């Protein structure tokens, strides 16, 4: 048995889950799909005294078009979100990004809430939430609150969730009809953790100038990086090769990578620039229509 011993509670309601978490005061962990948590248990990097399994809470598994937002219940599986027409139509950056999450087998089990709450800085979903100004909905002993993605991701595997809170949903603003999206990820094989990944959503106006651009980078800091300076540089300008290179350099300058066993910091910064340029070329190409190529 690789994990240490723990108790297991299958929550019968959201209130039940919150109550069990409160009872254990920080020693309990929420189990969603388990695709990040179970490996942590196997390596004994996580040693909770109790796991609170949300699997029985069908009310946390849904896709809902809610006014100008898409709301996704925390227990919705990544594969469900990736293949849903409702998501492709409203937030096309999301399925394009989810195609890079592990492999199909992992996306079958992994959940949207689990990925967001795990807050791996190399993960795709947190970067998409940052790029699109998403929100996270949490319920705790004090009730329900909504947290902006900008405030939610605090550090490596660290979020603004309090120990007694359960993440119940993520919310993303529906994107303008003509938005063009691109995802470029560099990993050692398809499905591995990103060395660096760049996510872009670009709107062009009638004269093919960039109306707005949203860019986020995974794998280049302790949290997903939003590249605001590059976005400002691009807004209102035609996508010339020189401009895209300048924006790519601005994105690289916004990153704060560290050296690790997989890549030195300078290498990551350089890859961030190259992937950003490729994303922007793809998203502004004359024939790009909701481009989602890998």
């Amino acid at each position, binding site marked *: *048995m*690789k*994990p*240490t*011993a*723990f*108790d*297991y509670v*299958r929550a019968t309601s959201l209130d039940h889950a919150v109550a069990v978490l409160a009872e254990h005061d920080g020693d309990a962990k929420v*189990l969603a799909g*388990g*695709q990040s948590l*179970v*490996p942590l*248990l*196997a*390596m004994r990097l996580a040693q909770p005294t109790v*796991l609170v*399994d949300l*699997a029985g809470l069908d009310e946390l598994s849904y896709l809902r078009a809610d006014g100008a937002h898409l709301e996704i219940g925390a227990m919705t599986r990544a*594969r469900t979100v990736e293949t849903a027409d409702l998501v492709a139509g409203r937030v096309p950056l999301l399925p394009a990004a989810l195609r890079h999450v*592990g*492999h*199909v*087998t*992992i996306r*079958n*089990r992994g959940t949207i809430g689990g990925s967001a709450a795990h807050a791996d800085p190399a993960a795709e979903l947190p970067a998409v939430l940052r790029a699109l100004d998403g929100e996270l909905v949490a319920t705790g002993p004090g009730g329900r609150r909504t947290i902006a993605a900008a405030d939610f991701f605090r550090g490596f595997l660290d979020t603004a969730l309090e120990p007694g809170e359960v993440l119940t949903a993520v919310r993303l603003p529906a994107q303008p009809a003509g938005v063009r999206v691109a995802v470029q990820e560099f990993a050692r*094989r*398809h*499905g591995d953790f990103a060395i660096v990944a760049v996510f872009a959503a670009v709107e062009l106006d009638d004269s093919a100038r960039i109306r707005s651009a949203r860019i986020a980078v995974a794998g280049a800091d302790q949290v997903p990086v939003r590249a605001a300076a590059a976005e400002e540089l691009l807004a209102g300008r035609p996508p010339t090769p020189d401009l895209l290179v300048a924006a790519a350099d601005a994105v690289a300058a916004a990153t704060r990578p560290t050296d690790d066993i997989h890549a030195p910091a300078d290498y990551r910064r350089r890859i961030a620039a190259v992937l950003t340029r490729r994303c922007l070329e793809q998203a502004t190409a004359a024939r790009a229509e909701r481009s989602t190529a890998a």
Partner: protein
Amino acid sequence: MSTEITVRVNGVPRTAHVEPRRTLSDFLRKDCALAGVRVGCEHGVCGACTVVLDGRTARSCCTLAVQADGTDIGTVEGLADGTRLHPLQEAFWKHHGLQCGFCTPGILLTVQELLADNPDPSDEEIREGLSGNICRCTGYQFIVDAVREAAAVLRAETNGHATG
């Protein structure tokens, strides 16, 4: 603490008491004697432990047995129809896509899902589909050959049923 679970494994109902920390892979191998479930990396990288959980593939080493309570589980032992091999198994045998065979059960179940989702994949799509299953013999070319042929056989079977 142990918890009672009830599952169906390859169609056979089974009730057992398991510790919460028991992985589904250990449950299937040790409690159900299904050695076709292979345990390689035990943290979700190698794909050898792949099983089918309620119709979709899952890593059994990254699933706790308690999470599987109430589910329908398929392993490689359920793939053949009695003594008649599944077309995927036939193709792997014919093209020598097995090599040492350790990764084969997980690959067969992964490919079965791939072909159900995409009956006519390109070589690139086959390789991407296999990217979650590590073969330490590095025998991927024969595996890709086998998948391509199995896809054609399965398409012909489907068309035969459709027209016949």
